[in-house]
């Protein structure tokens, strides 16, 4: 018997060892693939395109920094791009040729379309979209992006609010102003949330900000900004605030987006749906609309599950349970009339007098 279990330990050790080796080899292979020259070259074109749009300069050092490769390799990479006619090197400054620009726009188009696809057609969480699109953008040919665009109904903007270049490489860009430059009391709409760096971006997403959200500035000073959105007060430090761009507007276009969320409705209270938050996307959004949750629909909170979530609402005569995360994205106006009606007659009489 002792011999038996010694053998089995050796066998188990061998299995674990083999597993580790396979895992390590896979990692090496993945790194190699990721670092292939084509992919790096495309990243360089994108970097130069973005820098030029912001009127910044790109140097050899910034390329090697961004790709995390030694300057020698970066030099070789730039020479290859130059030979392919995608790049001009003008006395230390890097410029895209017209064909290089077209190439860069194609990569940006692939990236933003893929983000749109992830947001609408898959269940991946929001903070993963950018990273996944960074990888996928290198493997979509122009025909693929065209087919994808058609499948998605030719969207004009990605989920972060960035415009998607058209098939012919046209790009219409609304440049917003930084959030912190908005005067106090001004109404505005968020047009863009920078998705890099990811840690700042995921903080902003957690706060519930999204492109298209209407806000009203309360206070701006050196310690940050304070603003109202969807009935909630938000505070941002200067650094995250700099990653949010807005366009000022004269009046609130959509009163629905300034209402309250369905999840605040206590059992027995009534509300009227004002609209669905743009963060409610894809299949989930369609499902909610199928159930008849539309602007003007009246909703009554009926009961809460004994485990705290979900809550059942009476919607158009049917009893439908929604989870808290979903109810958060449905904007409503609380109707107080109902609670008045349920009060005893004497209370109503005294209110009338």
């Amino acid at each position, binding site marked *: 018997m002792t011999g038996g279990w010694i053998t089995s330990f050796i066998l188990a050790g061998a299995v674990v060892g083999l597993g580790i080796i396979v895992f390590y080899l896979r990692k090496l292979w993945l790194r190699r693939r990721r670092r292939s020259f084509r992919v790096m070259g495309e990243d360089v074109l994108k970097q130069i395109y973005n820098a030029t749009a912001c009127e910044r300069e790109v140097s050899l050092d910034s390329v090697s920094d961004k790709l995390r490769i030694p300057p020698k390799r970066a030099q070789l990479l730039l020479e290859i791009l130059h030979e392919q006619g995608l790049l001009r090197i003008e006395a230390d400054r890097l410029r895209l040729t017209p064909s290089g620009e077209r190439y860069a726009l194609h990569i940006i188009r692939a990236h933003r379309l893929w983000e749109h696809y992830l947001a609408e057609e898959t269940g991946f969480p929001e903070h993963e979209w950018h990273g996944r699109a960074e990888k996928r953008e290198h493997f979509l040919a122009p025909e693929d992006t065209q087919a994808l665009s058609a499948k998605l109904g030719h969207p004009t903007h990605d989920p972060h609010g960035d415009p998607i270049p058209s098939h012919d490489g046209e790009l219409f860009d609304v440049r917003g102003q930084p959030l912190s430059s908005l005067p106090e009391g001004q109404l505005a709409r968020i047009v863009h949330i920078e998705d890099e760096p990811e840690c700042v971006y995921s903080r902003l997403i957690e706060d519930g900000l999204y492109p298209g959200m209407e806000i009203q500035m309360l206070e701006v000073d050196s310690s940050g900004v304070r603003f109202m959105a969807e009935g909630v007060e938000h505070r941002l430090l200067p650094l995250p605030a700099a990653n949010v761009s807005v366009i000022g507007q004269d009046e609130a276009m959509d009163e629905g987006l300034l209402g309250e969320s369905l999840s605040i409705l206590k059992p027995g209270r009534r509300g009227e749906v004002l609209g669905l938050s743009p963060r409610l996307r894809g299949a989930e959004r369609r499902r909610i609309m199928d159930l008849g949750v*539309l602007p003007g629909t009246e909703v009554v909170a009926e009961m809460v599950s004994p485990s705290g979530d979900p809550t059942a609402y009476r919607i158009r005569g049917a009893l439908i349970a929604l989870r808290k995360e979903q109810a958060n994205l449905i904007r409503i106006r609380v109707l107080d009339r109902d609670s008045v009606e349920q009060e005893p007659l004497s209370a109503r009489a005294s209110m009338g007098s």
Partner: protein
Amino acid sequence: MSKSSKPTSEDILAQANTLRWDLGREFHQRLVETVYGEAARLADRAVTRPEKKPRFDFDRTIDRIVTSRIFGFPIMFLLFALVFWLTIAGANVPSRWLSILLLEKVYPLLHAAATGIGFPWWLTGLLVDGIYLATAWVVSVMLPPMAIFFPLFTLLEDFGYLPRVAFNLDNLFKRSGAHGKQALSMMMGFGCNAAGMVATRIIDSPRERLIAMITNNFALCNGRWPTQILIATIFIGALVPPHLAGLISASAVLGIAMLGVLLTFVVSWALSRTVLRGEVSTFSLELPPYRPPRILQTIYTSIVDRTIYVLWRAVVFAVPAGAVIWLVANIDIGSMSIAEHVIEFLDPFGLLIGLNGVILLAYVIAIPANEIVIPTVLMLTVLATGMSGVGQGAGVMFETGTGDTLAILQAGGWTLLMAVNLMLFSLVHNPCSTTIYTMYKETGSRKWTALAALLPLGMGFVLVFLVAQVWRLIEALI
């Protein structure tokens, strides 16, 4: 003049291209919202609803009770305990009748008839001992519990209570990335995993439905309860004084079932965060109005749609399996049958993971239904040990009293470790072929079906291997 002012198609396209940027980002969303809104407005104007106030209040009262913080969970546990008790207690008698009829009366008759017509011994063996016996076994063990469980369950469903169970339990399932309705497909799985697969149709979110299907196997099905009870009685109950034996063996079986529920949550959690994370996920749960159950119609549909459907599939798979079981035990290569060769080949690996070659072979050839695993194990053990005076001959499955079963298994070299591991492996191994086929029909995907079959099998091997090593380590130390 007129020619030059007429725009060409290129001009129109170009203008459309510039104009699309002015539509605003939420153009599509707004358009769809308007269409829905307009449909709702038309419906509201055209459709009149009869006033149904009294029923409405009646529903509300029941809902207040069955989803209340105090009574919600106790009512649920009591109802399900009642359903399971009725199933187990009620199935005993018809199960015995069927087994007397099919195995003790018809079987010898068929044997005599086949011999009388002058069938060669191998044809009688293949048709009667192999195919007929496997099918009869599956029918007699499977039919009664299903014919009781499914109508009861369907009655609860028809009354409108089951959606409230999903409502009560959703928070628990949400934490493991699953849907509250999975509680229902899991319950159905305790009756039969193949029926559980069909029951996941109520989950309309693709990701959560796949989770419910892949983890359904961890609900200990009706075909595996007898295995658990038998092994727990003869091995685990025997460890303690007789007056405690019943209690301890029952706890062991219940422990296995609970482990299955725990694994359901753990595996759901892991799946929703790894392979299934990109699948589309939505949530909505409709709580329909209560209505008096239509008892006769319910019994009819649950027997036709669920019981007969599942039973038919099981029989379809049992026929070839019965043939294979008989053939491997009766075709000799050299001095031994195929079964003995395979057992000898599998034995070292089986012993390493705390099982043996007989059990492994039984799980391979008894894949159509978990019901015939124990009869196959007994037959193969007798065959492999060359015992005489027990059983009914090579390739003929049988069952016998607990005392004889223990004697046979001990002669086959069974230890307590092997019994514990068999109970674990019976819970955590690939679903039966009926379930696998049903999953393939439901999903149409080879990939997810393969995952559902291989994931629990892999987990089962790892689990019994680890238990065996720890067990042996402790044994060596004390």
